C-alpha cells in the first residue's frame, strides 16, 4: 500500500517536472549550462595542472633514474666524494652510483639548457640503467659502451633542441667552464621530452672544476632490506651539505611550489560553479513561487510535504546531473585544446615550456561531477523547503499572492554567517593550504546573500516613505521595499558576482602596486648584470676587477645567487650574497619591521617573508647554513637579523653579506652585479665596454638590464600570471549576471497580471517600462553597495589570509577606485537594461488579457 502510494507520488512528480520543463525549457537549460560551465572550468584547470605536474614529476624521475634512494648535494657546489665509499660499504646497499649533476648551456644558444650528468658507466649500469648511453657509430652496429673523456650522449629531446646530430661537436658551459664534446650516441632510456646529457664522471669532475665533488649518489637497496634502518645508517654518515631524497620527497618538492597556485586556480574556477548554484537558486525560487498554487493543489490532493521537497530537489539533481556531465565533456575538450595550443602553463610560470600529454583523472572527474550535482542541489534546497512548507488553504485562497510587506525579513542569519566567516579567517593553514580562508569566503558570501532582504529594506526605507511625483519610481520603490525577499533572489547573483569581482580586483591591485613599489625599492641602481643559468660558476675575481674599472662606473656591487636545499620536501631556498650596508638597516632591503642589532661576532642574514613562513625562523634565531665549499661538509652559523619583503622568490631567500658568504663558502665567483653609473655616463656605452672586457662565450651569456626594463618585464609576467585569473573571474561574473538577467526576466513575466491592471487604470506602457528600469537600477544600486562592502571584506581575507597562507607574502591594501566606479556604473546600467529588456518582453504580449483569469 505504502509503495503504491509512493509510486503515485513519483509518477505525479514526474508529470509535474516534465510539465514544468515543457512549459519553461529555457530556464532549465540555462541553469544546466551554468552548472556545466562551472564544472568544465574547474575540471579543465585541474586536468591542465595535473598533466603539467605529471610531466614535471616525470622529468624529475627521469633525471633521477631508477634508483631507490638518492643522496643530493644541498648546493650546486656538491659534497665531498669521500661520502661515496662510506655509503657503498653500508649494509643493505646493493649498489651506489656517484654522479656529477650540472645545469649546462650550449655556446650556440643561450636558451637551451641541458641537465648534464657525469656518471660512472659500470655503476650507473646497475643502479640507474635508464641513464646509460647507446653509442651509435656511423656505419657500424649500435653498441653500449663505456664513456670516454670527450664523449657525450644526448637524449633525443636534447639533440632536437640543440639541433645537433650524432658525430657533431658541441661546446657545453657549466660551473664557469666551457668544454667541447663529441656527440657519440643517445640515451634511449630517457623519457620523451627530457633534455639530458651524459658524460664520464671523471671528465665531468676534471673539466668542469668539480674535482673531489659530487652532486649526488644514486643508491639501490638490497632486496628485503629494512629501508628505515638503512636510512638511519645513511643519516649517521651524511655531511651537512648533503641530504636524502626519495621518489616521494622529490615528488613533494616539485608539488609544493605550485600547489598553492593550483589550488587557488581550482578555487577560482569553482567560483563559476558557485555562481551557477546561485543561478539554479534563482531559477528554482521563481519556478516554485510561480507554482505555489500547483503545489497547494497537490497537497490538497494528498501529496506529502516530503514528496514536494523531493520533487524540487529531483529537478535540481537532474539539472545538476545533466550540467555536470556536459561540464566534464566540455572540461576535457577545453583542457585538451589548452594543452595543445598553450602548453601546460596557465600563466603562473611554474610549468613554463612544458607540453604535457593530457592525462584523464577519473577521481577528479567523479569529484567534479559530484560538485556539480551538489551545486545544483544546494541551489534547489531553499526553494524546495519553500515548496514543501506551503500551506495549501492559505495559498489557494490567496491565489498565490505571497508578498507581505508587513513581514520583517530574518535578522540573525546573516550576522551569524558573517561572524562565522570572520572567525574562520583566523584559523591557521591546513597542510600549507588556506582551507579555512576559503571557507571564510564562502561563509561571508552566504552571509552577504542572506543579508540582502534586510539590507534592501533598510536602504529603501527612507526612500519609500517619500511620495514621488513620478508614479513609475514610486511604484518601483514600494514594490522593492514591500517584497524584499523577491528582490533578494535577484540580488544574490549581483552581490555574489560583484563581491567576488571587487575582492579579486582589490587583491590584484594591492599585489600589483606592492610589487611595483617593491621593485623600485630593490632596484635602486642604474644597471643590473646577470650571467645566465650558472649558479655554480660566474665572474671570477679578475673579471670582477676588470668590470669595476670600466669607465663610467661609479660603483659596482657583485652578487651571487645560489640555490640551497634546506629541506628534502621544499624547493631550494635562494642564498643571495651582496654588499650589505650595516649603517643603513639592511643595506637597502625592503625590511618588514626593524633589523635587530647583530651580536658580536655573529654572521647576520636577512630572511625573506616566504623563507620565514616555510622554515619557521624568526628574527633573533640562529641557523646553520650548509654553504661551506672548501671546508667540506661544515656549516656556517648565521643570525637572522631581520625579515625582508621578497615577491620574486616564492621558495624563500636569505640575504648574506658578500664577505661573509665568501668566507663561509670559499666561493669568489659572482653571477650578478648592480651598477651605479658616474654622472654623465651613457648606459649603452658602459654596457658595451663591460661586454668587451669579458671572454666572448661569457659575454654571450651576460644580460644587462636597466631597472625600468626589469620592472616592465616583472609587470608583464605579473599580468600574464593573472591572465587566467581574470578570465575565470570574468566567466564567473558573466554566469552571475546571466543569473540576474534570468531572474529579472522570470520575475517580470510572473507580474504580467500586475502590468495588465496598471494598464487598465491608466498607466502608460512607457511608465511601466520606466518603473521596471527604476526597479532594475535600484536593485543594481543595492547590489553594488552590498557587493562593494562584501567584496572589501572578502579582499581582506584574500590579502591577509589566503595570500600569506598560500604564497607566504603579505601586502598593503590598495583600492582601485577607478574600477569601483566602472563596476558601479556598468552593473547598475546592466541591471536596469536587463529589467527594461525583460519588461518590454512582458509588455509585448497581450498583458491586458492577463487580468482575466478565465479567459
Amino acid at each position: 500500500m505504502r509503495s503504491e502510494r509512493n509510486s503515485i507520488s513519483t509518477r505525479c512528480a514526474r508529470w509535474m517536472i516534465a510539465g514544468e520543463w515543457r512549459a519553461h525549457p529555457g530556464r532549465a537549460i540555462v541553469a544546466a549550462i551554468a552548472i556545466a560551465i562551472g564544472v568544465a572550468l574547474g575540471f579543465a584547470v585541474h586536468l591542465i595542472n595535473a598533466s603539467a605536474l605529471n610531466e614535471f614529476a616525470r622529468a624529475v624521475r627521469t633525471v633521477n633514474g631508477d634508483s631507490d634512494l638518492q643522496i643530493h648535494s644541498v648546493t650546486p657546489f656538491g659534497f665531498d666524494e669521500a661520502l661515496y665509499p662510506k655509503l657503498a660499504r653500508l649494509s643493505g646497499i646493493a649498489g651506489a652510483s656517484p654522479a656529477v649533476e650540472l645545469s649546462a648551456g650550449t655556446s650556440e644558444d643561450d636558451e637551451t639548457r641541458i641537465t648534464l650528468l657525469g656518471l660512472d658507466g659500470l655503476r650507473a649500469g646497475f643502479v640507474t640503467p635508464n641513464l646509460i648511453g647507446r653509442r651509435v657509430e656511423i656505419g657500424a652496429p649500435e653498441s653500449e659502451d663505456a664513456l670516454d673523456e670527450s664523449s657525450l650522449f644526448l637524449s633525443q629531446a636534447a639533440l632536437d633542441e640543440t639541433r645537433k646530430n650524432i658525430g657533431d661537436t658541441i661546446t657545453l658551459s657549466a660551473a664557469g667552464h666551457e668544454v667541447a664534446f663529441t656527440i657519440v650516441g643517445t640515451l634511449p632510456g630517457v623519457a620523451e621530452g627530457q633534455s639530458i646529457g651524459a658524460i664520464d664522471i671523471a671528465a665531468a669532475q676534471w673539466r668542469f672544476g668539480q674535482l673531489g665533488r659530487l652532486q649526488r649518489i644514486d643508491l639501490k637497496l638490497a632486496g628485503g632490506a629494512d629501508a628505515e634502518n638503512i636510512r638511519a645508517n645513511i643519516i649517521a654518515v651524511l655531511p651537512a651539505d648533503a641530504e636524502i631524497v626519495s621518489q616521494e620527497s622529490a615528488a613533494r618538492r616539485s608539488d609544493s611550489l605550485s600547489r598553492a597556485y593550483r589550488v587557488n586556480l581550482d578555487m577560482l574556477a569553482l567560483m563559476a560553479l558557485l555562481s551557477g548554484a546561485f543561478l539554479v537558486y534563482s531559477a528554482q525560487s521563481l519556478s516554485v513561487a510561480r507554482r505555489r498554487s500547483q503545489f497547494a493543489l497537490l497537497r490538497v490532493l494528498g501529496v506529502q510535504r516530503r514528496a514536494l521537497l523531493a520533487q524540487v530537489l529531483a529537478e535540481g539533481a537532474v539539472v545538476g546531473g545533466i550540467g555536470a556531465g556536459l561540464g566534464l565533456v566540455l572540461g576535457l575538450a577545453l583542457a585538451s585544446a589548452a594543452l595543445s595550443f598553450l602548453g601546460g602553463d596557465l600563466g603562473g610560470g611554474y610549468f613554463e615550456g612544458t607540453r604535457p600529454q593530457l592525462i584523464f583523472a577519473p577521481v577528479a572527474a567523479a569529484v567534479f561531477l559530484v560538485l556539480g550535482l551538489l551545486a545544483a542541489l544546494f541551489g534547489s534546497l531553499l526553494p524546495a523547503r519553500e515548496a514543501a512548507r506551503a500551506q495549501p488553504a492559505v495559498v489557494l485562497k490567496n491565489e498565490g499572492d505571497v508578498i507581505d510587506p508587513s513581514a520583517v525579513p530574518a535578522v540573525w542569519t546573516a550576522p551569524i554567517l558573517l561572524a562565522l566567516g570572520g572567525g574562520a579567517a583566523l584559523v591557521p593553514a591546513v597542510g600549507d593550504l588556506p582551507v579555512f580562508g576559503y571557507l571564510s569566503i564562502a561563509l561571508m558570501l552566504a552571509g552577504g546573500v542572506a543579508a540582502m532582504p534586510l539590507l534592501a529594506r533598510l536602504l529603501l526605507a527612507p526612500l519609500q516613505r517619500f511620495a514621488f511625483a513620478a508614479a513609475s519610481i514610486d511604484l518601483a520603490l514600494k514594490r522593492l521595499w514591500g517584497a524584499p525577499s523577491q528582490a533578494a533572489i535577484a540580488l544574490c547573483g549581483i552581490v555574489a558576482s560583484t563581491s567576488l569581482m571587487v575582492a579579486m580586483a582589490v587583491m590584484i591591485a594591492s599585489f600589483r602596486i606592492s610589487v611595483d613599489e617593491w621593485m623600485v625599492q630593490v632596484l635602486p641602481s642604474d644597471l643590473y648584470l646577470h650571467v645566465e643559468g650558472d649558479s655554480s660558476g660566474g665572474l671570477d675575481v679578475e673579471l670582477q676587477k676588470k668590470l669595476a674599472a670600466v669607465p663610467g662606473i661609479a660603483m659596482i656591487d657583485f652578487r651571487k645567487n645560489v640555490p640551497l636545499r634546506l629541506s628534502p620536501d621544499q624547493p631550494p631556498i635562494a642564498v643571495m650574497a651582496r654588499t650589505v650596508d650595516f649603517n643603513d638597516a639592511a643595506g637597502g632591503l625592503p625590511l618588514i619591521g626593524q633589523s635587530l642589532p647583530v651580536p658580536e661576532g655573529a654572521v647576520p642574514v636577512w630572511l625573506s617573508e616566504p623563507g620565514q613562513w616555510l622554515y619557521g625562523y624568526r628574527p633573533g634565531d640562529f641557523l646553520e647554513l650548509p654553504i661551506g665549499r672548501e671546508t667540506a661538509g661544515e656549516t656556517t652559523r648565521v643570525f637572522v637579523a631581520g625579515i625582508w619583503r621578497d615577491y620574486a622568490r616564492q621558495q624563500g631567500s636569505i640575504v648574506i653579506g658578500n664577505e661573509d658568504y665568501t668566507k663561509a663558502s670559499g666561493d669568489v665567483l659572482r653571477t650578478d652585479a648592480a651598477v651605479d653609473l658616474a654622472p654623465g655616463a651613457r648606459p649603452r656605452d658602459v654596457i658595451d665596454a663591460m661586454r668587451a672586457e669579458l671572454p666572448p662565450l661569457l659575454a654571450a651569456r651576460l644580460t644587462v638590464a636597466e631597472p625600468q626594463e626589469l620592472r616592465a618585464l616583472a609587470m608583464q609576467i605579473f599580468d600574464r600570471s593573472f591572465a587566467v585569473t581574470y578570465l575565470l573571474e570574468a566567466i564567473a561574473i558573466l554566469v552571475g549576471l546571466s543569473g540576474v538577467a534570468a531572474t529579472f526576466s522570470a520575475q517580470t513575466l510572473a507580474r504580467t497580471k500586475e502590468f495588465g491592471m496598471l494598464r487598465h487604470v491608466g498607466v502608460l506602457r512607457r511608465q511601466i517600462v520606466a518603473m521596471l528600469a527604476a526597479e532594475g537600477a535600484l536593485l543594481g544600486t543595492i547590489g553594488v553597495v552590498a557587493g562593494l562592502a562584501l567584496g572589501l571584506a572578502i579582499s581582506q581575507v584574500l590579502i591577509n589570509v589566503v595570500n600569506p597562507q598560500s604564497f607566504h607574502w603579505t601586502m598593503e591594501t590598495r583600492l582601485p577606485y577607478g574600477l569601483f566606479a566602472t563596476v558601479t556604473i556598468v552593473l547598475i546600467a546592466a541591471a536596469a537594461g536587463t529589467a527594461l529588456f525583460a519588461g518590454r518582453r512582458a509588455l509585448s504580449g497581450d498583458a491586458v488579457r492577463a487580468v482575466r483569469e478565465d479567459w
Partner: protein
Amino acid sequence: MHGPIIPVAPLLSVSALKKAVPGGRVLFGDLDLTLKPGEFVAITGESGVGKSTLLNLIAGLDVADAGSIAIDGVALDSLSDDARTLLRRDRIGFVFQAFHILPHLTLAQNVALPLVLQRGSSSDAMARATQLLDSVGLAGRGPDYPKALSGGELQRVAIARALVHRPALILADEPTGNLDPETAARILDLFAKQVRVSGAAALLVTHSSVAAAVADRTMKLTREGLAEIHAV
C-alpha cells in the same frame, strides 16, 4: 428594443461593432450600445460570447475589426495608444473579477493609485482614498496590507479604487465571480450604491442574472448582438 430617446448627449456610444477572435470566429458582428451619464447597464451572456472583449474594446485596450466607439463624443479609433490610456486614467474606473490589488501597497495606496497617476497632491489623494475606504466599509484599514484580507474585502478595495478619481464610466467584469453568494450580494449592493452616489455610468458584465438585477437595464450578448431583456 431600445430605451426612450432623451435629449442628453450619450456618454458612451458604440455602433456597428465587429470583433473576431484570432481563429476567425466572429464574437459579435453588428453591436450597438448607448450609455447615458449615470446610467447603470448590465450585460449578460454565456461564457466565451465576448463580454469581456466588449469591455476591453470600450476601454480602448483592444481594437475592433469594424464599427466605432465614442466616449463623450470622442472616437477611440482617432486616439493614439497613449491618448486612450490617458482617457482611461481620467474617465474610466475598473473592477475585475480577480480584484488585482497590488500586494506591496497598503489598502489606501492601492485605492489612491488612480489619483497618484493623475499627479494630484499626495495628501489629497490619501484623504480621498481614506474617505472611499470608509464608504466601502473598510474604515481605519488604510495602512493595512492586502495579505490578510478576504475576497469580499479585496473587492471592496477594488470598488473604492474604481471610484476614487470620480470617473464618468465604470467597467466591471464579473466583480462577484470569485465570491460566495452572500458576500456577492453584499458587494453588488455596495457597488450599485457607490456607483449611483458617484453619478457615474456603469457597465457591468456578468453571468449571473442575480447580479444583473441591480442594474437599470439588462442586455444579453449573443452572436447576433445585444438585446435588451429588462428595463427598470
